């Protein structure tokens, strides 16, 4: 395939550099796309803010004070430069800097995502491993088909059904994620269980499928056969040889799903009225609060780019074979 790399360390650092550069390019393009789409808004922002009956001079003055009469490229450069320095612009809706809103919302979303991940990652890996160990038996079928079915359903559909079952009929869990002020960590987690369920259901299928196929491949491999033939107990073969190799691709899937997860948050947070980054973006979109919207989406894009970057790097560190041309 590719050229043979000289030494592992060198190859890996070259890989890391190349991967970093790629992420940077993606980020720049991403910001340009986000900024560009944000410009297509019909009508001027000044008119939008002041309403249809405002004096044209007032509208022009507001546009000038917001810096909207400058060339697009200058505005873009300004926006990006501000962003790099931590200034995300001013919200039209709240007439205040965007950053505190975005930071707080991101923190809330991370809490929700953390609850979802802490539950789904072990559950899905266990599910995938159990399915693989019972390859083609009923348990495997149930886990695989059930997982895939849940994966394809929109979050608000599973969310509604879960709210009906656990919130309305059984009354086990609160149906809103708004916990009382000053609630402790455990109360917060209690309030986040139901909102995290739709995310968990979507992620379970993806992660379990990767874990399952990784396991099946590893179980089928020569080194597993060798390990069995040299007389190692089955349990030890699984733990020491199979699992380690099988779960490598799963790491990547888990990390790429973080990006999806944050997208899914828009829906889940709207459904459960949870003040996260998804609801922030949604509210900003409804209110045409462009600076807030752009900042929210760019932050999400950054988080996604970073998680995929980390996933790729982890994968490279764990799996030296990556240097043999798997990059492109």
């Amino acid at each position, binding site marked *: 395939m590719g050229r043979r790399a000289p030494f592992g360390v060198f190859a890996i650092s070259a890989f890391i550099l190349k991967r970093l550069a790629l992420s940077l390019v993606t980020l720049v393009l*991403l910001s340009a796309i986000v900024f560009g789409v944000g410009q297509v808004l*019909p009508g001027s922002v000044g008119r939008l803010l002041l309403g249809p009956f405002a004096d044209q001079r007032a509208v022009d003055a507001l546009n000038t004070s917001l810096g909207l009469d400058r060339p697009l490229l200058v505005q873009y450069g300004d926006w990006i430069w501000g962003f790099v320095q931590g200034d995300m612009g001013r919200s039209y809706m709240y007439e205040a800097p965007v950053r505190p809103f975005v930071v707080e919302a991101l923190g809330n979303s991370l809490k929700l995502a953390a609850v979802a991940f802490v539950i789904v990652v072990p559950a899905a890996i266990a599910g995938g491993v159990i399915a693989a160990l019972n390859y083609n038996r009923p348990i495997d079928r149930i886990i695989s088909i059930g997982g895939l079915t849940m994966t*394809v*359903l*929109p979050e608000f*559909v599973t969310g509604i*059904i879960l*709210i009906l079952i656990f919130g*309305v009929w059984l009354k086990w869990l609160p149906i809103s994620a708004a916990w009382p002020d000053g609630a402790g960590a455990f109360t917060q987690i209690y309030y986040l269980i139901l909102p995290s369920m739709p995310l968990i259901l979507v992620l379970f299928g993806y992660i379990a499928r990767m874990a399952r196929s990784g396991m099946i491949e590893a179980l089928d491999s020569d080194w597993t056969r060798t390990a069995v033939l040299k007389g190692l107990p089955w349990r030890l073969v699984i733990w020491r040889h199979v699992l380690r190799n099988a779960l490598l691709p799963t790491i990547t899937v888990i990390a790429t799903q973080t990006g999806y997860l944050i997208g899914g948050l828009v829906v889940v947070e709207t459904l459960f009225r949870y003040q996260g980054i998804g609801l922030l973006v949604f509210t900003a979109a409804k209110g045409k609060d462009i600076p807030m919207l752009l900042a929210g989406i760019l932050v999400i894009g950054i988080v996604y780019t970073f998680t995929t970057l980390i996933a790729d790097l982890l994968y490279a560190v764990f799996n030296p074979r990556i240097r043999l041309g798997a990059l492109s």
Partner: protein
Amino acid sequence: MTMATAKATVDRPAATPRRDRSRMILRKLFRSGVFLTGFGIVLFWVFCAIFGIYLVPYDPLSSDILNALQPPSAVHWFGTDQLGRDVFSRVIVGSREILVVAPAATLLATVVGSALGLCTGYFRGVLDDVVSRIMEAVMAIPGVLLALLAIVSIGTSKVAVIVVIGLSFAPNIARTVRSAVMQERELDYVAAAHLRRENAAYVMFVEILPNVIPPILVEATVRLGYAIFAVATLSFIGFGIQPPSPDWGLSISTNYGMINGGFWWTVLFDALAIASVVIGVNLVADGVQGAFSER
């Protein structure tokens, strides 16, 4: 019997008459339980979308405030919503718009994505690098957010939803087509076309395109599932299909606020309808994938 044909196809892809191959694939499809189940579900909803409006007991849009929020009964099978509209009629007719918008978006994504994939896979080089980077950046934004951003800019309409979902899915199809094209262009028949001095457009669209139809079809059916997912989600958050349509996602978003009052029938049936369509389309996609996997 299929062994011999299959082997011949693998050795010389262009040699087997195309009609035989598609007949074989069709036969395989209609023997697969997964495909048939999904196909049945989809067919049911397509039927509802086309003829439902003539068959339902009530006008899905006419309200009857005196009978608002009635639980399911013999008169109103699925109960009535807050305006007294018959939920059963609304669920049946609610299939209409999503089953037009989602396939249209998928079609747009397939056409644009295939063209991009053909060009990048065929020409490679700088064009490929530039287009691929841009597509990666687009794919780095979760689809719903991209749609949200774009729809805020160009306004909410059915066409906007189709364009936005179509364009945001195009990179996924382009990626699949690109890798298929990169394999095809190394084959002899492409070299032969080059020797005949055919121009690039001819080689791409007349020579290569027919041979990459299977991956395009598989990817398109998979994308259709995602498109339904996306349209339903956009309607739910208020950026998709607009009132007074009885669309499922829209109905859920207008009714779920009262869920705590125990009015489960105003949302449950719509949720189940979305679930059944999405599962149906995914079963079809699975079946198609299976039928194409070993030629």
